[in-house]
Protein backbone atom coordinates (compact mmCIF):
# COMPACT_ATOMS: atom_id res chain seq x y z
CA UNK A 1 0.00 0.00 0.00
CA UNK A 2 1.33 3.40 -0.95
CA UNK A 3 1.81 6.13 1.62
CA UNK A 4 1.60 9.85 0.99
CA UNK A 5 4.75 11.64 2.16
CA UNK A 6 5.80 15.26 2.15
CA UNK A 7 9.43 16.17 1.81
CA UNK A 8 11.51 19.18 0.88
CA UNK A 9 14.20 18.60 -1.72
CA UNK A 10 16.51 21.49 -2.60
CA UNK A 11 14.05 23.97 -1.02
CA UNK A 12 11.16 22.68 -3.10
CA UNK A 13 8.22 20.90 -1.44
CA UNK A 14 7.02 17.59 -2.83
CA UNK A 15 3.97 15.53 -1.94
CA UNK A 16 4.33 12.07 -3.32
CA UNK A 17 2.84 8.58 -2.87
CA UNK A 18 5.54 5.98 -2.26
CA UNK A 19 5.67 2.27 -1.53
CA UNK A 20 7.27 1.24 1.79
CA UNK A 21 9.97 -0.71 -0.04
CA UNK A 22 11.17 2.28 -2.10
CA UNK A 23 14.41 3.77 -0.85
CA UNK A 24 15.01 7.50 -0.74
CA UNK A 25 17.56 7.04 -3.55
CA UNK A 26 14.91 5.32 -5.70
CA UNK A 27 12.36 8.08 -5.13
CA UNK A 28 14.82 10.92 -5.74
CA UNK A 29 15.96 9.38 -9.02
CA UNK A 30 12.82 7.75 -10.39
CA UNK A 31 9.86 9.66 -8.98
CA UNK A 32 11.36 13.14 -8.58
CA UNK A 33 13.68 12.71 -11.56
CA UNK A 34 16.84 14.11 -9.99
CA UNK A 35 19.44 11.72 -11.37
CA UNK A 36 22.51 13.53 -10.02
CA UNK A 37 22.22 11.21 -7.01
CA UNK A 38 23.80 7.94 -8.19
CA UNK A 39 23.24 4.33 -7.22
CA UNK A 40 26.42 2.25 -6.99
CA UNK A 41 26.72 -0.60 -4.49
CA UNK A 42 23.25 0.02 -3.00
CA UNK A 43 24.38 -1.36 0.38
CA UNK A 44 26.03 1.68 1.97
CA UNK A 45 29.62 1.03 1.00
CA UNK A 46 30.35 3.35 -1.92
CA UNK A 47 28.74 6.71 -1.08
CA UNK A 48 27.60 7.58 -4.63
CA UNK A 49 24.02 7.97 -3.31
CA UNK A 50 25.05 10.56 -0.68
CA UNK A 51 22.43 13.21 0.08
CA UNK A 52 22.27 15.67 2.96
CA UNK A 53 19.31 14.68 5.15
CA UNK A 54 18.33 17.26 7.78
CA UNK A 55 21.86 18.67 7.64
CA UNK A 56 23.74 15.36 7.73
CA UNK A 57 25.26 13.42 4.83
CA UNK A 58 23.84 9.88 4.58
CA UNK A 59 23.63 6.95 2.16
CA UNK A 60 20.19 7.48 0.59
CA UNK A 61 20.18 3.81 -0.52
CA UNK A 62 19.78 2.78 3.14
CA UNK A 63 16.93 5.17 3.99
CA UNK A 64 13.34 4.25 3.19
CA UNK A 65 11.46 7.04 1.44
CA UNK A 66 8.73 6.76 4.10
CA UNK A 67 11.37 7.53 6.75
CA UNK A 68 12.12 10.81 4.96
CA UNK A 69 8.54 12.06 5.44
CA UNK A 70 8.74 15.63 6.75
CA UNK A 71 12.48 15.94 6.25
CA UNK A 72 14.72 18.34 4.34
CA UNK A 73 17.00 16.91 1.68
CA UNK A 74 19.78 18.51 -0.30
CA UNK A 75 20.97 16.76 -3.45
CA UNK A 76 23.74 17.79 -5.83
CA UNK A 77 21.17 19.63 -7.97
CA UNK A 78 20.54 21.99 -5.04
CA UNK A 79 24.09 23.33 -4.98
CA UNK A 80 24.32 25.52 -8.07
CA UNK A 81 22.35 28.72 -8.02
CA UNK A 82 21.52 31.58 -10.38
CA UNK A 83 25.05 32.80 -9.70
CA UNK A 84 26.46 29.59 -11.16
CA UNK A 85 28.25 26.62 -9.67
CA UNK A 86 28.90 26.27 -5.94
CA UNK A 87 32.53 27.08 -4.99
CA UNK A 88 33.21 23.37 -4.30
CA UNK A 89 31.89 22.45 -7.75
CA UNK A 90 34.10 25.16 -9.30
CA UNK A 91 37.11 23.83 -7.39
CA UNK A 92 36.47 20.28 -8.67
CA UNK A 93 36.41 21.60 -12.25
CA UNK A 94 39.47 23.80 -11.82
CA UNK A 95 41.58 21.13 -10.10
CA UNK A 96 40.59 18.32 -12.48
CA UNK A 97 39.03 16.40 -9.60
CA UNK A 98 36.55 14.67 -11.90
CA UNK A 99 37.42 11.64 -13.98
CA UNK A 100 34.41 9.47 -14.79
CA UNK A 101 32.26 11.64 -12.52
CA UNK A 102 30.22 8.87 -10.90
CA UNK A 103 31.44 9.58 -7.37
CA UNK A 104 31.45 13.36 -7.80
CA UNK A 105 27.97 14.16 -6.45
CA UNK A 106 28.64 12.24 -3.25
CA UNK A 107 32.17 13.61 -2.87
CA UNK A 108 30.97 17.20 -3.22
CA UNK A 109 28.12 16.74 -0.73
CA UNK A 110 30.43 15.11 1.84
CA UNK A 111 32.90 17.96 1.27
CA UNK A 112 30.15 20.56 1.69
CA UNK A 113 29.05 18.98 4.93
CA UNK A 114 32.64 19.16 6.22
CA UNK A 115 33.37 22.73 5.10
CA UNK A 116 30.05 24.02 6.48
CA UNK A 117 31.14 22.78 9.91
CA UNK A 118 34.92 23.27 9.60
CA UNK A 119 35.81 25.85 6.92
CA UNK A 120 39.49 25.50 7.86
CA UNK A 121 39.61 21.69 7.77
CA UNK A 122 43.10 20.26 7.21
CA UNK A 123 44.06 17.46 4.82
CA UNK A 124 43.56 14.76 7.44
CA UNK A 125 40.03 15.99 8.18
CA UNK A 126 39.24 16.23 4.46
CA UNK A 127 40.37 12.63 3.85
CA UNK A 128 38.36 11.44 6.87
CA UNK A 129 35.24 13.32 5.71
CA UNK A 130 35.24 11.69 2.26
CA UNK A 131 36.26 8.26 3.57
CA UNK A 132 32.76 6.87 2.97
CA UNK A 133 32.87 7.94 -0.70
CA UNK A 134 34.77 5.68 -3.06
CA UNK A 135 36.35 6.87 -6.32
CA UNK A 136 37.02 3.85 -8.50
CA UNK A 137 39.15 6.00 -10.82
CA UNK A 138 41.24 6.46 -7.63
CA UNK A 139 41.47 10.18 -8.27
CA UNK A 140 41.62 10.99 -4.57
CA UNK A 141 44.63 13.29 -4.63
CA UNK A 142 42.98 15.86 -6.90
CA UNK A 143 39.71 15.57 -5.01
CA UNK A 144 41.50 16.37 -1.75
CA UNK A 145 43.38 19.24 -3.42
CA UNK A 146 40.12 20.63 -4.79
CA UNK A 147 38.42 20.59 -1.38
CA UNK A 148 41.50 22.13 0.27
CA UNK A 149 41.56 24.89 -2.35
CA UNK A 150 37.99 25.89 -1.44
CA UNK A 151 39.04 26.24 2.15
CA UNK A 152 41.74 28.71 1.11
CA UNK A 153 39.08 31.00 -0.31
CA UNK A 154 37.42 31.39 3.06
CA UNK A 155 34.19 30.04 4.51
CA UNK A 156 31.75 28.41 2.13
CA UNK A 157 28.10 29.39 2.17
Amino acid at each position, binding site marked *: *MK*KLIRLTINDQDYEIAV*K*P*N*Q*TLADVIREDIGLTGTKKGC*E*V*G*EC*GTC*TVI*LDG*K*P*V*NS*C*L*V*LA*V*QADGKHILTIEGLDTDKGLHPIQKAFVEKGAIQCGFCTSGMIL*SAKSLLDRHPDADEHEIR*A*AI*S*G*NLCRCTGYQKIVEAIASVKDRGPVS
Partner: protein
Amino acid sequence: MRLPGFEFHEPTSVASACEVMGRLREKARLLAGGTDLIVNMKKKVIRPDHVVSLGRIDILKGIIEENGHLTIGACVTAAELAGAEVIRESLAALADGAAVLGSPLIRNLATVAGNLVSARPAADLPPPLMVYDAQTVLIKATGERSVDLNGFFLGPGKTLMEPDEILTGITIEMPKGCYGDSYIKLGVRQTLEISLVNVAAFIQLNGAEGSITKARIVLGAVGPTPLRAISAEEALMGQSPSDALFARAGEAAAGDAKPIDDFRGSAEYRRDMVAVLTKRALNAALDRARSR
Protein backbone atom coordinates in the same frame (compact mmCIF):
# COMPACT_ATOMS: atom_id res chain seq x y z
CA MET B 1 18.63 -4.10 -5.95
CA ARG B 2 14.97 -3.95 -4.93
CA LEU B 3 13.69 -4.41 -1.43
CA PRO B 4 11.07 -7.11 -1.07
CA GLY B 5 7.60 -5.80 -0.18
CA PHE B 6 6.52 -5.36 3.44
CA GLU B 7 4.01 -3.52 5.55
CA PHE B 8 5.39 -0.44 7.27
CA HIS B 9 4.52 0.65 10.80
CA GLU B 10 5.58 3.91 12.41
CA PRO B 11 4.53 4.02 16.08
CA THR B 12 5.10 7.31 17.90
CA SER B 13 5.44 5.92 21.43
CA VAL B 14 7.24 3.00 23.08
CA ALA B 15 3.88 1.69 24.30
CA SER B 16 2.42 1.52 20.81
CA ALA B 17 5.64 -0.01 19.43
CA CYS B 18 5.35 -2.71 22.13
CA GLU B 19 1.73 -3.31 21.17
CA VAL B 20 2.69 -3.77 17.49
CA MET B 21 5.61 -6.10 18.30
CA GLY B 22 3.46 -8.08 20.75
CA ARG B 23 1.01 -8.72 17.94
CA LEU B 24 3.44 -9.37 15.06
CA ARG B 25 6.41 -10.98 16.92
CA GLU B 26 8.62 -12.96 14.46
CA LYS B 27 6.76 -11.55 11.45
CA ALA B 28 8.18 -8.09 12.17
CA ARG B 29 11.62 -6.50 12.32
CA LEU B 30 12.44 -3.29 14.11
CA LEU B 31 14.02 -0.53 12.01
CA ALA B 32 16.30 2.06 13.61
CA GLY B 33 19.22 3.28 11.47
CA GLY B 34 18.65 0.64 8.79
CA THR B 35 22.33 0.17 7.99
CA ASP B 36 22.07 -3.56 8.78
CA LEU B 37 18.37 -4.28 8.30
CA ILE B 38 17.96 -2.65 4.88
CA VAL B 39 21.16 -4.28 3.59
CA ASN B 40 20.08 -7.73 4.82
CA MET B 41 16.63 -7.26 3.30
CA LYS B 42 18.11 -6.19 -0.05
CA LYS B 43 20.36 -9.26 -0.01
CA LYS B 44 17.27 -11.36 0.88
CA VAL B 45 18.99 -12.65 4.02
CA ILE B 46 15.81 -11.75 5.87
CA ARG B 47 12.32 -11.12 4.50
CA PRO B 48 10.09 -9.71 7.23
CA ASP B 49 6.39 -9.22 6.39
CA HIS B 50 6.37 -6.13 8.58
CA VAL B 51 8.91 -3.42 9.35
CA VAL B 52 8.36 -1.38 12.51
CA SER B 53 10.28 1.90 12.54
CA LEU B 54 11.43 3.43 15.83
CA GLY B 55 12.34 6.67 14.06
CA ARG B 56 9.28 8.67 15.19
CA ILE B 57 9.71 7.90 18.90
CA ASP B 58 11.52 11.01 20.10
CA ILE B 59 12.23 9.67 23.59
CA LEU B 60 14.60 7.09 22.06
CA LYS B 61 16.89 9.80 20.64
CA GLY B 62 18.29 11.33 23.83
CA ILE B 63 21.43 11.06 25.93
CA ILE B 64 20.45 11.87 29.53
CA GLU B 65 22.72 12.17 32.58
CA GLU B 66 20.84 11.84 35.86
CA ASN B 67 21.74 10.74 39.40
CA GLY B 68 25.17 9.48 38.37
CA HIS B 69 23.78 7.39 35.51
CA LEU B 70 23.86 7.96 31.79
CA THR B 71 20.97 6.73 29.67
CA ILE B 72 21.56 6.44 25.94
CA GLY B 73 18.41 6.09 23.84
CA ALA B 74 18.19 3.24 21.34
CA CYS B 75 18.13 5.56 18.32
CA VAL B 76 21.16 7.68 19.24
CA THR B 77 23.46 7.47 16.21
CA ALA B 78 27.14 6.58 16.20
CA ALA B 79 27.93 10.16 15.11
CA GLU B 80 25.96 11.54 18.05
CA LEU B 81 27.76 9.18 20.46
CA ALA B 82 31.15 10.17 19.08
CA GLY B 83 30.28 13.87 19.31
CA ALA B 84 28.52 14.04 22.69
CA GLU B 85 30.60 15.99 25.21
CA VAL B 86 29.64 13.80 28.18
CA ILE B 87 30.74 10.67 26.32
CA ARG B 88 33.97 12.18 24.96
CA GLU B 89 34.94 13.33 28.44
CA SER B 90 33.68 10.56 30.72
CA LEU B 91 33.29 7.47 28.51
CA ALA B 92 36.14 7.98 26.08
CA ALA B 93 36.37 4.34 24.96
CA LEU B 94 32.77 4.54 23.76
CA ALA B 95 33.47 7.77 21.86
CA ASP B 96 36.52 6.04 20.31
CA GLY B 97 34.43 3.04 19.21
CA ALA B 98 31.62 5.15 17.80
CA ALA B 99 34.11 7.30 15.84
CA VAL B 100 35.46 4.30 13.88
CA LEU B 101 32.17 2.53 13.16
CA GLY B 102 31.44 2.20 9.43
CA SER B 103 31.97 5.46 7.55
CA PRO B 104 30.97 9.10 8.20
CA LEU B 105 27.80 8.49 6.15
CA ILE B 106 26.97 5.26 8.01
CA ARG B 107 27.63 6.92 11.39
CA ASN B 108 24.90 9.48 10.66
CA LEU B 109 22.37 6.61 10.36
CA ALA B 110 23.62 3.65 12.44
CA THR B 111 22.29 3.50 15.99
CA VAL B 112 23.60 2.18 19.27
CA ALA B 113 20.71 -0.30 19.57
CA GLY B 114 21.24 -1.59 16.04
CA ASN B 115 24.93 -2.22 16.70
CA LEU B 116 23.94 -4.36 19.71
CA VAL B 117 20.91 -6.32 18.47
CA SER B 118 22.68 -7.29 15.23
CA ALA B 119 25.12 -9.16 17.54
CA ARG B 120 28.05 -9.22 15.13
CA PRO B 121 31.16 -10.56 16.88
CA ALA B 122 33.33 -7.75 15.44
CA ALA B 123 30.92 -4.86 16.15
CA ASP B 124 32.52 -1.65 17.41
CA LEU B 125 30.18 -0.66 20.25
CA PRO B 126 29.78 -3.78 22.44
CA PRO B 127 33.37 -3.90 23.80
CA PRO B 128 33.52 -0.21 24.81
CA LEU B 129 30.04 -0.44 26.36
CA MET B 130 30.87 -3.65 28.23
CA VAL B 131 33.93 -2.17 29.96
CA TYR B 132 31.55 0.22 31.78
CA ASP B 133 29.26 -2.70 32.79
CA ALA B 134 26.50 -1.21 30.60
CA GLN B 135 22.94 -2.50 31.06
CA THR B 136 20.42 -2.89 28.26
CA VAL B 137 16.80 -1.89 28.85
CA LEU B 138 14.40 -4.37 27.20
CA ILE B 139 10.70 -3.52 27.06
CA LYS B 140 7.65 -5.42 25.87
CA ALA B 141 3.92 -4.99 26.36
CA THR B 142 3.88 -7.07 29.53
CA GLY B 143 6.92 -5.64 31.26
CA GLU B 144 10.45 -4.30 31.34
CA ARG B 145 13.79 -5.86 32.31
CA SER B 146 17.37 -4.77 32.56
CA VAL B 147 20.05 -7.12 31.24
CA ASP B 148 23.81 -6.79 31.65
CA LEU B 149 25.40 -6.42 28.21
CA ASN B 150 27.90 -9.04 29.40
CA GLY B 151 25.57 -11.99 28.87
CA PHE B 152 23.28 -10.30 26.32
CA PHE B 153 24.97 -11.94 23.33
CA LEU B 154 24.46 -15.68 22.69
CA GLY B 155 26.36 -16.10 19.40
CA PRO B 156 26.78 -14.49 15.95
CA GLY B 157 23.48 -12.72 15.23
CA LYS B 158 21.90 -14.09 18.42
CA THR B 159 20.91 -12.32 21.63
CA LEU B 160 18.70 -13.29 24.54
CA MET B 161 16.01 -10.83 23.39
CA GLU B 162 12.53 -12.23 22.88
CA PRO B 163 10.76 -11.62 19.54
CA ASP B 164 8.39 -9.04 21.04
CA GLU B 165 11.04 -7.17 23.06
CA ILE B 166 12.43 -3.76 22.13
CA LEU B 167 15.85 -2.56 23.24
CA THR B 168 14.95 1.01 24.21
CA GLY B 169 18.30 2.10 25.58
CA ILE B 170 21.49 1.55 27.52
CA THR B 171 22.24 2.66 31.06
CA ILE B 172 25.72 3.17 32.42
CA GLU B 173 26.71 4.03 35.97
CA MET B 174 29.13 6.91 35.42
CA PRO B 175 32.63 5.92 36.58
CA LYS B 176 34.12 8.14 39.26
CA GLY B 177 37.56 8.87 40.64
CA CYS B 178 40.82 8.07 38.91
CA TYR B 179 39.97 5.91 35.90
CA GLY B 180 41.02 5.55 32.31
CA ASP B 181 39.50 3.88 29.29
CA SER B 182 40.32 3.20 25.64
CA TYR B 183 39.31 1.29 22.53
CA ILE B 184 41.55 0.09 19.73
CA LYS B 185 40.35 -1.37 16.44
CA LEU B 186 42.69 -3.31 14.18
CA GLY B 187 41.78 -3.58 10.52
CA VAL B 188 43.51 -3.34 7.17
CA ARG B 189 41.69 -0.14 6.22
CA GLN B 190 40.56 2.87 8.22
CA THR B 191 36.94 3.15 7.07
CA LEU B 192 34.13 0.68 6.37
CA GLU B 193 36.21 -2.00 8.01
CA ILE B 194 35.26 -5.07 9.98
CA SER B 195 37.72 -5.48 12.86
CA LEU B 196 40.31 -8.25 12.72
CA VAL B 197 40.56 -7.74 16.46
CA ASN B 198 39.29 -5.00 18.74
CA VAL B 199 40.02 -4.38 22.40
CA ALA B 200 38.43 -2.11 24.97
CA ALA B 201 40.13 -1.46 28.32
CA PHE B 202 39.10 0.21 31.56
CA ILE B 203 41.16 0.59 34.73
CA GLN B 204 40.41 2.36 37.98
CA LEU B 205 43.30 3.43 40.19
CA ASN B 206 43.69 4.14 43.86
CA GLY B 207 44.98 7.64 43.01
CA ALA B 208 47.11 8.67 40.03
CA GLU B 209 50.15 6.72 41.30
CA GLY B 210 48.12 4.02 43.07
CA SER B 211 47.32 0.39 42.37
CA ILE B 212 44.53 -0.96 40.16
CA THR B 213 41.21 -1.33 41.98
CA LYS B 214 39.02 -2.30 39.02
CA ALA B 215 39.88 -3.66 35.56
CA ARG B 216 37.83 -4.54 32.51
CA ILE B 217 39.21 -5.93 29.26
CA VAL B 218 36.74 -6.80 26.49
CA LEU B 219 37.78 -8.43 23.22
CA GLY B 220 35.91 -8.31 19.90
CA ALA B 221 36.18 -10.46 16.75
CA VAL B 222 38.01 -13.25 18.60
CA GLY B 223 35.01 -15.35 19.60
CA PRO B 224 31.35 -15.96 18.72
CA THR B 225 30.45 -12.95 20.90
CA PRO B 226 32.40 -10.02 22.34
CA LEU B 227 34.05 -11.46 25.47
CA ARG B 228 35.52 -10.34 28.77
CA ALA B 229 39.14 -11.39 29.24
CA ILE B 230 38.65 -12.50 32.82
CA SER B 231 42.19 -13.80 33.43
CA ALA B 232 43.63 -10.52 32.15
CA GLU B 233 41.37 -8.59 34.51
CA GLU B 234 42.44 -10.82 37.43
CA ALA B 235 46.12 -10.34 36.56
CA LEU B 236 45.66 -6.55 36.84
CA MET B 237 43.71 -6.39 40.11
CA GLY B 238 45.59 -4.92 43.07
CA GLN B 239 48.77 -4.39 41.04
CA SER B 240 50.69 -1.22 40.27
CA PRO B 241 50.49 -0.25 36.60
CA SER B 242 53.67 -0.96 34.65
CA ASP B 243 54.68 -1.99 31.16
CA ALA B 244 55.59 -5.45 32.43
CA LEU B 245 52.19 -5.86 34.14
CA PHE B 246 50.34 -4.75 31.00
CA ALA B 247 52.40 -7.21 28.91
CA ARG B 248 51.40 -10.03 31.31
CA ALA B 249 47.75 -8.95 31.07
CA GLY B 250 48.08 -9.01 27.28
CA GLU B 251 49.37 -12.59 27.36
CA ALA B 252 46.51 -13.56 29.68
CA ALA B 253 43.97 -11.91 27.33
CA ALA B 254 45.45 -13.85 24.39
CA GLY B 255 44.76 -17.01 26.40
CA ASP B 256 41.15 -15.93 27.00
CA ALA B 257 40.52 -15.23 23.28
CA LYS B 258 38.79 -17.88 21.15
CA PRO B 259 39.69 -16.75 17.62
CA ILE B 260 38.99 -18.63 14.40
CA ASP B 261 40.74 -18.68 11.02
CA ASP B 262 38.85 -16.89 8.28
CA PHE B 263 39.61 -14.97 5.09
CA ARG B 264 40.32 -11.80 7.10
CA GLY B 265 43.05 -13.33 9.23
CA SER B 266 44.33 -16.45 10.97
CA ALA B 267 43.47 -17.42 14.52
CA GLU B 268 47.18 -17.36 15.40
CA TYR B 269 47.59 -13.79 14.12
CA ARG B 270 44.45 -12.65 15.95
CA ARG B 271 45.65 -14.22 19.21
CA ASP B 272 49.04 -12.51 18.90
CA MET B 273 47.34 -9.20 18.19
CA VAL B 274 45.10 -9.55 21.27
CA ALA B 275 48.28 -9.52 23.39
CA VAL B 276 49.71 -6.48 21.58
CA LEU B 277 46.48 -4.46 21.51
CA THR B 278 45.54 -5.25 25.12
CA LYS B 279 48.89 -3.89 26.29
CA ARG B 280 48.49 -0.84 24.06
CA ALA B 281 44.88 -0.24 25.20
CA LEU B 282 45.95 -0.47 28.86
CA ASN B 283 48.73 2.06 28.35
CA ALA B 284 46.26 4.42 26.64
CA ALA B 285 43.80 3.93 29.52
CA LEU B 286 46.56 4.64 32.05
CA ASP B 287 47.48 7.87 30.25
CA ARG B 288 43.85 8.99 30.40
CA ALA B 289 43.54 8.00 34.07
CA ARG B 290 46.58 10.08 34.98
CA SER B 291 45.46 13.12 32.99
CA ARG B 292 41.91 13.05 34.31
